[in-house]
């Protein structure tokens, strides 16, 4: 069972502003029956160009209904300029958070709002101008890019949680991967958080990662020169290794270890690691 917040439950069980505004100024429709969720948002402005009345109709799960209901509450009384600043994260925050797998519900709310404002302003539906990346759910590159930027997404899985893209046949995963790489790079250059911080590792994960790194990055190079290296022990951040083969009587082994092995382990496992050689 999903761990929904009390606020999500409240907005699902008692949705606010259900229906359709008569004679609306703006209509936004996103999603479809096939996709499993859809939202129709209608609003009317008052004489000061503030949202006087807003209503929604949603086909979807509890979090889709709650997100729609929350959105209507959030934008009531706002000007369109104020309303369009609302991000999907704002909707999720308003609801006291959503399970990550359900973040696409908040994105759907934001998209419906965007579509309704565009409709009011007489702009073309945005979707047509962009490339559809995920054919199963009809998600465009624009939507994916926006979700990556606004939510600091790092993996294809997260993109799926937030936009549904890639949640069907999975054929578009390489495309999403490419978009992610490009956008993350751009975000890095713009001074946004560039790289995911390394997670705190458990001891077992650390040892495993050290073994993998040694096997992949270091041992093949040593072997090519007739040497070898063995992992003896890991104690906290100290990594004990023994050199074998030609390396074991190589006078420059001290340098080899310190510079080469340590730098690789620090790059792939943890900044804190110190390599010690065990002479046998």
């Amino acid at each position, binding site marked *: 069972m999903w761990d929904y917040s009390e606020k999500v439950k409240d907005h*699902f*069980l008692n*949705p606010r502003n*259900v229906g*359709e505004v008569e004679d609306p100024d703006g209509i936004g*429709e996103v999603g479809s*029956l*096939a996709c*499993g*969720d*859809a*939202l*129709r948002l209608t609003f009317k402005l008052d004489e000061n160009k503030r949202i006087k009345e807003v209503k929604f*109709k*949603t*086909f*979807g*799960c*509890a979090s*889709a*209904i709650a997100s729609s209901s929350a959105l209507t509450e959030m934008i009531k009384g706002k000007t369109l300029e104020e309303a369009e600043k609302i991000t999907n994260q704002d909707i999720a925050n308003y609801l006291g958070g959503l399970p990550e*797998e*359900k973040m696409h519900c908040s994105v759907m709310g934001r998209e419906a709002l965007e579509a309704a404002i565009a409709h009011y302003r007489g702009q073309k539906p945005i979707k047509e101008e962009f490339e559809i990346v995920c054919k*199963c*759910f009809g998600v465009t590159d624009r939507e994916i890019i926006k979700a990556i930027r606004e939510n600091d997404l790092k993996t294809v899985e997260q993109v*799926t949680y937030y936009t*549904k893209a890639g*949640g*069907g046949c999975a054929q578009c995963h390489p495309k999403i991967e490419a978009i992610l790489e490009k956008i993350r790079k751009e975000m890095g250059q713009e001074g946004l958080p560039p790289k995911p911080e390394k997670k705190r590792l458990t001891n077992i994960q650390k040892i495993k990662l050290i073994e993998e790194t040694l096997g992949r990055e270091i041992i093949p190079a040593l072997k090519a020169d007739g040497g070898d290296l063995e992992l003896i022990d890991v104690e906290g951040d100290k990594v004990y290794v023994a050199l074998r083969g030609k390396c074991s009587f190589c006078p420059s082994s001290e340098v080899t270890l310190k510079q080469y092995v340590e730098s690789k382990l620090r790059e792939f496992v943890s900044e804190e690691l110190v390599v010690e050689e065990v002479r046998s």
Partner: protein
Amino acid sequence: MKTVYVDNNATTKVAPEVLEAMLPYFTELYGNPSSMHFFGGQVQKKVNEAREQVADFLGADPSEIVFTSCGTESDNAAIFGTLDSYPEKRHFVTSRVEHPAVLNVCPYLERKGYRVTQVSVDREGHLDLDELKESLTEETGLVSIMYANNETGVIFPIEEIGQIVKSKGIPFHVDAVQAAGKIPLNMKKSTIDMLSISGHKLHAPKGIGVLYIRKGTKFSPFIIGGHQERGRRGGTENVPYIIGLGKACELAKKNLEEENTRVRALRDYLEAKILEKIPNTLINGDRNHRLPNTLSVSFEYVEGESILLLLSDLGICASSGSACTSGSLEPSHVLRAMGVPFTAAHGSIRFSLSIYNTKEEMDYIIEHLPPIIQKLRDISPFWKDYLKSREKG
């Protein structure tokens, strides 16, 4: 809050008799059946009795019963244990509507270089027997087909399938996890070589399963360890659970008739009332070839998770084949394989009954379900569109 539990294809209540039979084996009779002393020996005797109870329930010989940890292990063991025994056979045949315990083994086998055929079903959920027949070759190492579908309850003609499979001399495994206790099983008169059952679907606890392996069937153990289960499954016997499953099988044999009379009548009553009171409702799966306890029903233009949570708010526990409930984004593979339209697949709900359900509980559901569907349809943008389009004709 009142609890109306109608999700028995997910799991069942442990029968009080089962729990009672199990308890001494946690506290007083905790010996290891393999031990040489009397303390272990008396436990071994009871394990043997449980094995006989299971064998009696399946119409098998006790030596053909292998205890496992769950239905998934039984399915996995049958598949890998057989394919390992025939390394030259590189083709596996199953259906598109299997439980994940078989379904998700398919891509794994493909990565290992096997060819996999997943036979289609039609709109009613029936297996395409011609396709199955044509798929079988010299290369086929195993055919694994479920007895009855967990989502729709549709029953496959297992003996007819078995005839086809055995006429080619191919091993035949059947996942009977949902069928056991609802369809009479008799391995002595069956074409089945291997059969999986799971304890917690028939009022034993979670964590115990059985793989029936017909005498003379080639099988490599999936879990390698001690000599337990005649070398076919290593690991110290899960004694209390085995005792519990034995008792549950004894009860299931007794209750088979009630499942097919009283429980079936309750299910039919629930189904008739739902169809009568809620428009735009479809039943998924052939109503004439269905488990007596299962009802899969789709409500058009609404989404399953929403229905479930509103039901849950009233204490009613059911399940759904909708995308949102599983965490995946697509509706159930079973309903998609059947070609259930999206309008209905997303709004599917499964009610699965047991002998512990009552008519009062059905009436409680019937009282509360129509307003729930109406409430969600009032929120859904498609319902009004549909009504409008119907007005226009």
